[in-house]
């Protein structure tokens, strides 16, 4: 009898278990986004370094990290002014 009531109450989301799950979900979205943000900044710097060996960039390199269907998707977009000449490429290499 009592356990039936208790279960009803728990199923209806009155127990603090549901609150814990909801609060955790939100906190972790923020935590993970913050850490991913640092990572993207670092990644952008490295990518720009590599790209600039080959091309002259027209403006800032765009690097974005999004999630869709449980997987992270990395998008990079670069407007290019011109390709580096071969001679300067060899100098780099």
């Amino acid at each position, binding site marked *: 009898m009592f356990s039936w009531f208790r279960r009803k109450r728990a199923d209806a989301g009155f*127990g603090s278990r549901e609150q814990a799950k909801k609060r*955790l*979900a939100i*906190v972790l979205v923020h935590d993970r986004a913050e850490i991913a943000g640092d990572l993207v900044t670092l990644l952008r710097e490295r990518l720009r370094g590599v790209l600039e060996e080959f091309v002259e960039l027209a403006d800032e390199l765009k690097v974005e990290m999004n999630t869709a269907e449980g997987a992270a998707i990395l998008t990079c977009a670069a407007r290019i002014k011109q390709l580096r000449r071969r001679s300067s490429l060899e100098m780099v290499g």
Partner: protein
Amino acid sequence: MGEAIVITSGKGGVGKTTTTANIGTSLAMMGKRVAMIDADIGLRNLDVIMGLENRIVYDIVDVVEGYCQLRQALIKDKRFDNLYLLPAAQTKDKSAVTPKQMRALVEELKNDHEFVIIDCPAGIEQGFRNAIAGADRAVIVCTPEVAAVRDADRIIGLLEAASLRHPQLIVNRVKPSMVRRGDMMQVNDILDILAIDLVGVIPDDEQIIVSSNKGDPAVMIQGSRAGQAYRNIARRLAGENVPFLDLEAPAGFFSRLFKFGGN
């Protein structure tokens, strides 16, 4: 060549040291050659949990600084002669050891021991980086609380960044009565949130306090449910396929709690 397993958590007070002691002792009871390292420099505790605090002569910092040989600092357990403890220093701070020195130390221990179990300090600073430096795999301890799960998530990210992939989770101090009335997260809730594999569930057990009072790990106490759960974890870590505990709890409950796909 042995295997090094680091026991970590991020949050303090969730049972890392107790877990290290019980897994180490349990593996030794299975006949494995085991060395436990207390990597919590400045706040050593594994020695008292193991009841070996009176036998310490040298510690990990003495070894690293060259004051003694590694085998001089290793304390042989009083119950099992295939179980050893390398104690932390109590007077120094965490910067007394570097990740490189730690790696060398663990490699040396792996030559003579099948398992090297490393007790990681709480936090994510140098003590953590030292503790994970020599590890081949990681076990994360977490209690069914918001703060502990949050910190575990952070630790999983940091372990991944350090190339320690696929850590396994221990959910500690599960209280069946609270889960039953919907006031505690279920193991499955935590697994969903963290998206990692489970290696064991430890029920909340007063015997853990009793065992720490005595300095005898709970795996040596016959009636301890936590001890039983730790023995199962040790067998899983050693590669055995052990079904998850169907504890003799109120009917219907554990069948729900321990319902994991394929297990």
